[in-house]
């Protein structure tokens, strides 16, 4: 494998698009917006056979997501996919990366899960399933997130609880989904004695009702695991716990995933 060049873009998009047209378009946009650093291609001479790579997660300590990983349809079944993955994992270890995650859909086409082979491949190189968000991409299409420890993580780190003032400042439909929304949130500086409070059940209900009015189907939220004030408002507003990405932000600091099914709740006042 070698680093991807901009001149590889057309070949790479063709390989991805052959498998999933939407993914091809999304990958093209991503290469344009975020560049091709950390992207690698499997080549035979001048011919591009596959693509894989990684993107670092901002604000985290050595956390990466596996980026578009596709192999030319005609080259499948020869162990090349596994070779590409192991190559990327090896490169990440070389740069002292700590954890790698990958997202997989369970999209069905003609009654067949077209990502089943990919899921099996990820597990074969050591990825472990951490979170499954049901109906994430669309009704009946889940998102599975798998994680791979690139270096041993301590099991007994206990981080101090934090109580920052968290406020919601927007909402949007999650990319590549149909009707799945999330809230944007920020940590505000507390303004001393009369500082603002962190979000409450009522704040969540305002957002839930707004998404319902926009025709949203489901809401997904994620928070770091050391925020003690988030749980009761989320639970009271009808959110369900989905799972956690272990050691996502740093060792001992996980990413908690919550979802709210708008179709199964009455309108809130």
């Amino acid at each position: 494998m070698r680093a991807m060049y901009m001149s590889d873009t057309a070949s790479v998009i063709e390989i991805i698009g052959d498998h999933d047209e939407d993914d091809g378009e999304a990958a093209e946009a991503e290469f344009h917006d975020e560049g091709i650093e950390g992207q690698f291609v499997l080549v035979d001479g001048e011919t591009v056979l596959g693509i894989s790579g990684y993107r670092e997660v901002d604000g985290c300590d050595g956390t990466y997501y596996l980026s578009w990983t596709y192999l030319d349809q005609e080259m499948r079944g020869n162990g090349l996919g596994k070779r590409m993955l192991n190559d990327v994992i090896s490169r990440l270890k070389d740069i002292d990366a700590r954890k790698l995650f990958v997202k997989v859909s369970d999209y069905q086409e003609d009654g067949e899960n077209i990502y089943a082979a990919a899921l099996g491949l990820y597990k074969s190189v050591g990825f472990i399933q951490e979170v499954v968000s049901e109906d994430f991409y669309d009704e009946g299409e889940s998102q599975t997130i798998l994680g791979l420890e690139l270096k041993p993580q301590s099991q007994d780190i206990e981080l101090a609880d934090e109580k920052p003032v968290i406020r919601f400042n927007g909402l949007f439909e999650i990319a590549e989904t149909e009707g799945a929304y999330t809230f944007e949130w920020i940590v505000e500086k507390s303004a001393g004695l009369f500082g603002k409070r962190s979000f409450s059940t009522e704040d969540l209900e305002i957002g839930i009702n707004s998404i319902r009015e926009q025709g949203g189907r489901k809401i997904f939220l994620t928070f770091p695991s050391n925020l003690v004030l988030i749980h009761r408002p989320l639970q009271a507003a009808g959110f369900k716990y989905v799972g956690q990405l272990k050691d996502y932000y740093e060792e001992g600091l996980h990413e908690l995933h919550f979802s709210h099914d708008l179709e199964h709740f009455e309108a809130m006042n």
Partner: protein
Amino acid sequence: MIPIRDDNPQVAIPYVTYTIIGLNILAWTLVQGFGDEAALRASVCNYGLIPGDLFGSGLDQKACAPEGSLIGLFSSMFMHGGWAHIIGNLWFLWIFGDNVEDAMGSLRFSFFYILSGLFAAAAQIMSDPDSMIPMIGASGAIGGVMGAYIVLYPRVKVHLLVFIMVFRVPAFAMLAYWIGVQVLGGISSIGVTGGGTAFWAHVGGFAAGAILVLVFKDEELLLNHPYHGWKQQSDPADIWSDPSNRQ
């Protein structure tokens, strides 16, 4: 033994707690002249609560001007006898008041506070109805706040300064110790004449607060609070262990 802080996050802004603290400071500065002797004496007589005046049973031996004794039921809650008295009282209110207000909402908390103060006064009056010694201080009402706190947040850790060491103890242990001292003080004061600490006001306020909170607490507001009750696990995230709260 001084509580420094509690491990109990404030969810909403405690407007009434801040207002009560402000009113006490205002009374101390504007009415009591920062403890100036003449102003202090006048304020204690005019705005303190004198059981003998209230029931007319001690008019012949009145220690102060009799006017204002009914007003004294309320005004005495905002009067203090010295710097240590006001600082101590307001410090306890600062530590514990915000979380009790969190559990009730500001309007209900204001009624709760006044009612606790009235029950505290009633308890002190009952201990010596003919007394001509003026009773002052927010401590009866603040005793009510502490009574509510022990019911609402018994397992929350309070950081206590003991000499030069800081210990983290559960609220129920710290407050049980505090009320125990007040009860013992009250018993030892029976039959003793002269001024001093109104132990029975503390006991009455504490008991009233512990009972009134059952009526005044708002379960909806408590839903926003990560720590409350005996059954609450130490980790707020434990609520997700209930299968009905999971995807």
